[in-house]
């Protein structure tokens, strides 16, 4: 290809004064087309990004807008932290902290229980293994509303209503299915021969899991943890029903800004931005793991 180009390009230089007037517009036209072709991919990506990002960017700019100008379409305004400042004065921070605590706790518990379960389901052949795995998945199939009344009544009786632990346990129940099913595929991707080699090298079952299998499944573990965290973080339904004041989470707290006296758009936008923030940060931090984790096993190493 390159040698062919070279041979064709050598005889190209024409008598300069004769060729230049006619060829100039054509040349600039092709140059523009060439530029477009080279950057088409990038341009398409930017356009797509704008479409996808629009709701988020809109929310963020609303958060920095002065309350009085909130309904003006102009993008020209003096940014203010007024919305965030008013959040600090109210008790939104507490709900934000609650969200963080509930999500972290439920993610931790889900991994603690789900990861060993997934490992056992992957590596041990026992009777009814497939059935057990399926039952676990079934818990995720019913709509959340089906569980609300039992949860509500049980929690009132157990005194778990409006507690961080109570909410974390609810999220644990539905995150567990995710952990177990995702981690099974990640554990399957670790060759059993590596564990056998570890047994022979002197590991027990637990050591082989801890030193060999788990480190190799780490990208998957990170992806799973992020998904659990995000599911718990984004939940609105259970938090609305099972909390009142003490353990109220950020998404529910936002609703409190929609009042009879009027909707506090600046606060809604500011709190929405804050709720969005950890998810974005978390995802960006582990994005390579996330992609690798979610595609693991799809391609042979």
């Amino acid at each position, binding site marked *: 290809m390159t040698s062919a180009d070279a041979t064709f390009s050598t005889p190209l230089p024409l008598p300069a004064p004769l060729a230049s007037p006619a060829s100039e517009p054509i040349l600039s036209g092709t140059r523009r087309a060439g530029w477009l072709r080279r950057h088409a991919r990038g341009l398409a990506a930017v356009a797509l990004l704008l479409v996808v990002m629009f709701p988020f960017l809109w929310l963020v700019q609303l958060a920095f807008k002065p309350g009085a100008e909130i309904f003006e379409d102009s993008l020209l305004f003096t940014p203010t932290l007024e919305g965030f400042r008013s959040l600090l004065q109210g008790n939104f921070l507490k709900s934000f902290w609650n969200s963080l605590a509930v999500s972290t706790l439920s993610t931790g518990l889900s991994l603690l229980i789900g990861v060993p379960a997934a490992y056992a389901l992957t590596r041990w052949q026992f009777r009814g293994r497939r059935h057990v795995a399926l039952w676990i998945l079934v818990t995720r199939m019913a709509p959340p509303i089906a569980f609300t009344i039992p949860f509500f009544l049980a929690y009132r009786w157990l005194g778990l209503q409006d507690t961080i632990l109570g909410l974390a346990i609810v999220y644990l129940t539905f995150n567990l299915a995710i952990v177990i099913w995702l981690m099974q595929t990640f554990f399957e991707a670790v*060759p059993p*021969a*590596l564990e*056998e*080699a*570890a*047994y*022979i*090298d*002197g*590991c*027990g079952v637990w*050591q082989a899991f801890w030193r*060999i299998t788990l*480190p*190799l499944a780490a990208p998957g573990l990170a992806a799973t943890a992020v998904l659990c965290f995000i599911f718990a973080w984004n939940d609105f339904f259970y938090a609305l029903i099972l909390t009142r004041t003490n353990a109220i989470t950020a998404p529910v707290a936002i609703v409190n800004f929609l009042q009879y006296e009027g909707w506090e758009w600046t606060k809604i936008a500011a709190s929405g931005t804050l709720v969005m923030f950890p998810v974005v940060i978390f995802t960006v931090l582990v994005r390579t793991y996330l992609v690798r984790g979610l595609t693991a096993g799809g391609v042979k*190493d």
Partner: protein
Amino acid sequence: MAALSLEKIVKHYGATPVIHGVDIDIRDGEFVALVGPSGCGKSTLLRAIAGLESITSGAIRLGGRVINDVAPKDRNIAMVFQNYALYPHMTVAQNLGFALKLQGEDKARIQRRVHEVAAILGLEKLLDRTPRQLSGGQRQRVAMGRAIVRQPDAFLFDEPLSNLDAKLRVQVRTEIKALHQRLSTTTVYVTHDQVEAMTLADRIVVLKDGVVEQAGAPLALYDRPANAFVAGFIGSPAMNFIPGRLHLDGAASEVVTDDGLRLPLARPPRGRHGDSVLYGARPEHFALDNGGAGLPAEVVVVEPTGSETQVAVRLHGRHDVLAAFRDRVDLRPGDTLRLQPVAAQAHLFDAASGARLN
């Protein structure tokens, strides 16, 4: 180092028996190869010795101690896996030192030992690499290093050369043999490649369908195979078999095929006149006998390998056999010649049971 003995090993997968009472005694320091076609149970047997597979009945003894119910980690056995099974998240040095680290050795001693082993195997420059940065041969060497670093009672090799290309395979084979001569550790080596088994082992155990067909020194198996299966399995190119009937006439004996070919035997074998038999002749045990009374043969294919020339011929227009000559022979497809099997080197087997008759 220790002697290893397998006594009446039986293994069932569910209701399916895969190993039917195998007895093998391996002396301290001996190199034993388990060979057989795929599915013969050789890998299962090896994994049972390692403790990765339970046995249904029988006893595995290592240094006199029954280790049936001992966990793999407490057997003090090292194993080299077919796909190497190196830990991908560890460097070569960490891979080599992993077993010592688990034993709670102090860091300085681990490092010294890792360097010793790396020196033996020529891995010094690769210690900081991860397995994925190594070539197949280097990975193979790390896998061996991981086995020898612990100075175990026994080495187990599970088809360790099958992932290497032909040239490297020969090279690593020599390295394994040199390593064994240096360390003299009891070794069990599983392979389906009889050439590997012949070249490496002090003793070969031929398995088929979970039963030991024959065990013995490589050349003993080659020279006097106990049955037709071993005769056909050991040796490359494989032995020729020609079916016929036994003719006994006083001290003279021969095998006569149903189309009248007369195949010579040196001594009268076991069996009765008229028995249905298999006459076995290795490719190199044919003599060109153009003047005399050899068997009429037509050349089908000529395959020169340089060191010898293999000639596929058809005897009497019916029996396809392969003959190999060390001398350069000038033959072309379609040529006719006369071939004489060497009577003293002929093998005779019962046609039904396959048992050796001479």
